């Protein structure tokens, strides 16, 4: 990260803390916002957040690493979370998982090199009556078939980095 990028990051986080508040209760909303904006919560960001909230960076890391939606690793523009819990499993999630692996060329827990996709398993997402279900970023997709997955990936791929 260059010095000017660092300054920009710091300025954005300062703005976020101003908006959300400087208390400890703001930590998770702040991390969530950073994660959505930068697709990662890196060491630099954790340090800045720690400075702003007057806590140790290890505290920030401890929280970020606890939550599935906050963990630090960089994610693609499109985060696909396929539900792996029982009812979606019964409904055929394994075929959908294979189509995703096949289409993206990565396994669960990985991201594509072009930074467009991250593939993750999700614990039950509450769509058990309409499985197999997945979340594409904040969007829920239900009764997904392997064909749907191929179409979805193609659409997102052509949308490119701007999403």
């Amino acid at each position: 990260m260059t010095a000017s990028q660092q300054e920009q990051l710091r300025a954005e986080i300062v703005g976020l803390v101003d908006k959300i508040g400087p208390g400890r209760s703001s930590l998770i909303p702040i991390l969530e916002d950073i994660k959505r904006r930068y697709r990662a919560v890196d060491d630099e960001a954790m340090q800045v957040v720690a400075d702003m909230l007057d806590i140790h960076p290890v505290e920030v890391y401890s929280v970020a690493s606890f939550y599935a939606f906050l963990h630090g690793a960089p994610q693609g523009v499109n985060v696909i979370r396929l539900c792996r819990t029982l009812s979606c499993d019964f409904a055929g999630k394994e075929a959908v998982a294979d189509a995703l692996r096949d289409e993206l060329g990565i396994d669960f827990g990985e991201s594509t090199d072009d930074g467009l996709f991250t593939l993750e398993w999700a614990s039950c997402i509450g769509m058990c009556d309409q499985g197999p279900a997945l979340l594409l970023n904040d969007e829920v997709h239900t009764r997904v078939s392997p064909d749907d997955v191929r179409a979805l990936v193609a659409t997102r791929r052509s949308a490119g980095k701007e999403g």
Partner: protein
Amino acid sequence: MTTASIESQGNALTYATIEADAGLRAAAAVSRPDIIDTVSASGLKGRGGAGFPTGMKWNFCAAEKAEQKYIICNADEGEPGTFKDRVILTRFADLVLEGMTIGGRAIGATLGIVYLRAEYRYLRPHLVEVIKRRREQGLLGRNVMGVEGFDFDVITALGAGAYVCGEETALIESLEGFRGEPRNRPPFPVVAGLLNNPTVVNNVETLAAVACIFAKGAEWFRGFGTDKSTGYKLFSVSGDCERPGVYEFPWGISVADLLEEVGGQGAKAVQIGGASGICVPAKDFARRLAFEDIPTGGSVMVIGPQRDILDVAENFLEFFVEESCGQCTPCRLGNAKMLECVQLLKKGACAPEYLADIKALGDTMQVASKCGLGQTSSSALLSILEHFGDEITGRAPSA
């Protein structure tokens, strides 16, 4: 909000027949102790699964002296197979907010927080919209319904992807900006909850039920269900059945009757209460869904005759290995050992002595874990071992 969320099938819900804000009007007209008396008289018990009497919880909190109190709506609906709160929040958010407002008045809280799981983020704009409208209608904010001194407002907060945050003290830790690790209890949240202030945490469905109880009366509510389990309950039905969806039934319905309603006859077992629940075999389908028989938060997953019961156990244990917060050893390591055992059983490589050890470990986890997650995560496997011994042991060894 998504169309998928509205599309859920099921049967007719009583909520749809409740006059808007009739409950809040009734509660605003009476004193705080009378509100709690009505809730107690209705016999309402927590709908999240634990079944704690709501009136008692509110009474404990009301008795505390504090500058600030809170009422939290637990919308961290993460139990596998549960989706009724999603449907309630989509179609009946007003009832939930009404119940929260009544609860706020009862315990003396001026702020309510809806804690929504991150996976339901798409519901947040809808909730924010409903809250805004209720403020404009004078149903939230200062002097609710024109009653002097009845101040109550609601904000929303998002989780960040952790099943354990459905446990009330972990939820509070998360709201405070910490890892979602459950606290030691006591003190209970009603005494020292959010930011050390007295706090009531109620499930979405519990709060909606409160609004109905005040609209129609405690006696009306007691007219449904059994003596010990009053009222009706929403069940999230999924798995191997013809008509999955959200169903309302009075407490006390038998598993067999429920299966008939949803087109799940012929099932070999039903998992009730989600991954943390129990696996009920076909021979026990006469058992009833009620706090005095099979208590549940409403998750019903139908397991058809074609399924391998060990796949079911494996799926749940993978879930718990992922979702254990890691704080207590019995849960952190126990779930991993139980999963390993299921995988050994699948390969026909689990010695009977080892299986006995695993059963003992499951019992230990139930008594030695701090929170509900570790106390219940072995239940599914233990019930499967009890009822499906013939199916799971003695498999031909494989690679």
